[in-house]
């Protein structure tokens, strides 16, 4: 009996999970011996922020987006252009870019989200590709396919530089993103989203404004992607259109699915695994991609709901069984 409340507590979104994540972020530096490891973790954090947002859309609202790299790229390039070419303060550039991306997502989302299934996937894909094409062709501003240098992020006179500083900034923002997502899911709006996921018609029958909720969550996820994009641009110091490619969109969706849909922490785990895996697998050299594929297939076969939900279920099933054993024994 003892184990169950603890497990439930850990699984309860706003307390246990957040604490565990905060603990991991606080303790991780003990194991990071050099800047390279910090760099990987920062990239994990940035990807995780995007995935937490994308998971709201895919996992909870049940809407697919194959164009999120477009929002990421728009955020990155918006910040880069405003801050580097026009000399805006980075924070102002980031805010302006985020607003612009939110507006873009709203305008695009309204008509697009009336579509369903494959049509929605295609429309978001098209949007992502348009962003990519604009970035590649408008080389007077974006530097074209060869990319553009970005000034470091600064607030007031303080310049954010070095992997360690960025680690704490990205860590804090990831916590914030997770907190926002968990709160949203636990709110009436979140329940409305889940209702939409199970049955859009059913949800509308009970009085949920489907269009409004879908657009809302689309805009929120675009904002997450855009902010992560802006930060990634300043952190890297140089960006190329590679950030906005269709392939990157697919990677993001894969992270969400791999970690486990409809699980915020699953999105974080998915981002962490898929960002670090290529680094770990680099030792296989020529067979890297094959091993990568094998890991992906293995996970999907043995943990079909994604890493976190599948393992959580396993624990739940086991603790239920224990309770059952004890009750029947008593």
């Amino acid at each position, binding site marked *: 009996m003892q184990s169950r409340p603890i497990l439930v507590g850990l699984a309860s979104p706003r307390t246990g999970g957040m604490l565990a994540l905060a603990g991991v972020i606080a303790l991780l530096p003990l194991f990071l011996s*050099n*800047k*390279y*490891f910090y*760099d*990987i973790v920062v*990239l994990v954090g940035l990807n995780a922020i995007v995935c937490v947002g994308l998971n709201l859309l895919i996992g909870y609202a049940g809407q697919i987006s194959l164009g999120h790299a477009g929002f990421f790229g728009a955020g990155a390039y918006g910040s880069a252009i405003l801050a580097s070419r026009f000399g805006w303060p980075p924070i102002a550039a980031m805010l302006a870019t985020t607003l612009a991306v939110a507006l873009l997502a709203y305008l695009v989302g309204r008509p697009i989200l009336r579509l369903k299934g494959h049509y929605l996937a295609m429309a978001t894909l098209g949007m992502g590709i348009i962003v990519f094409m604009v970035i*590649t*062709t408008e*080389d007077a501003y974006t530097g*074209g*396919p*060869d*990319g553009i*240098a970005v000034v470091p992020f600064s607030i007031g006179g303080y310049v954010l530089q070095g992997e360690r500083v960025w680690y704490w900034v990205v860590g804090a923002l990831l916590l914030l993103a997770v907190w926002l997502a968990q709160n949203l899911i636990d709110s009436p709006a979140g329940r409305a989203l889940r209702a939409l996921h199970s049955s859009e018609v059913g949800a509308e029958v009970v009085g949920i404004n489907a269009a409004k909720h879908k657009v809302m969550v689309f805009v929120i996820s675009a904002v997450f992607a855009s902010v992560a994009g802006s930060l990634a641009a300043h952190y*890297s*110091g*140089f*960006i*190329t259109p*590679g*950030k906005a490619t269709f392939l990157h969109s697919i990677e993001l969706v894969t992270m969400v699915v791999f970690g486990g849909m409809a699980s915020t922490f699953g999105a974080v785990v998915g981002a962490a695994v898929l960002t670090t895996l*290529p*680094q770990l697998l*680099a030792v296989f*050299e020529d067979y*890297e*991609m094959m091993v990568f594929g094998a890991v992906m297939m293995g996970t999907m076969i043995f943990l079909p709901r994604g890493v976190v939900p599948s393992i959580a279920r396993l624990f739940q099933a086991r603790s239920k069984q224990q309770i059952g054993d004890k009750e029947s024994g008593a």
Partner: protein
Amino acid sequence: MKSKQAGSSIKRGLAAVAAVFTLMAGTAIAADPIKVGSFLSVTGPAAFLGDPEQKTLELYVEKINAAGGVLGRKLELVAYDSGGNAEKARTFVKRLIEQDKVDVIVGGSTTGETMAVVPLVEAAQVPFISLAGAVVIVEPVKKWVFKTPHTDRMACEKIFIDMQSRKFSKIALISGPGGFDKSMRGQCLGVAKKYGIEVIADETYGGGDTDMTAQLTKIKNTAGVQAVLNAGFGQGPAIVTKNYRQIGVSMPLYQSHGVASKEFIKLAGPAAEGVRLPAAALLVADSLPQSDAQRSVVVSYKNEYESRFKSEVSTFGGHAYDGLYIVVEAMKKAGGTDKAKVRDAIEATHGFMGTAGVFNMSPTDHMGLDLSAFRMLEVKGGNWTLVK
């Protein structure tokens, strides 16, 4: 059962750790190898660059080691596949610098990947030789960054000089959407004036286009065009060449060094006859005169590569050869792997004969090639021939 298993796995783990430590201690007693780091686009859209580059590095590191290494120490190649992705390139370079602690970096197949890592190598002060094309890599000069390939500006200049000698002054430009095409178009427009050349038509085509007749017809109907230059890469230029003949344009057609491979002649077929382009001597290695100072270098590289990998040599692999040997020579000159000394020695590279030409680097020139590195070639009888 369980505890026993756990015990044995811990033992195994300890044994592994011990083995690693003995290994590390073992190598510390013998001379440490010199670590050459590399990140190349071995897969992905730029694989045609990264693949021959990686093969070349592996081949020659092996050969150098077989001949006793450098300064009595073996070379160790640490290479990662960045897949044409600037973000990956950046992470791998951090890994090379922080984790692998390499002495020097030779790599970076594309300009984007190279530019993304420039801030890192500058901060870490590691000598870096890039294998990418664009001028921006070495202009303005960056203290720790060098490159071995010719620039697109040099290609433009070589072409314009040839045009001058044929008394052309009004030309048309047609280019594609890629990074190479865009960069070269910009450079050509920039230096045209210097050679008294006026670009009176400037057309572009898209990435997936399979027919460029519309753009070419426009050029054909522009009064006064004397020659056409196609700044392009991949399939596009072959299609341009075919369409060019199909609509019966009679003006001379110039291509860029971007299509300097047999593949282009195969794709364009008989339409390629008479097309001129600037390229490295490597392409015409066997037909270089015996007196040519570059002949022995390019012929031996070509033979080594082709006999080992059973595939045709490309200029891209040659850039890796040049980069590796410039580094090796610099280390010999510096008498060690002290990064600052090696950097100075690279900068002082003088008269080094590579596959791309003679390298004469200086504090203001971190590439060191001049226009003599390019040969003007013409397609004749389905093969490259030197324009005399």
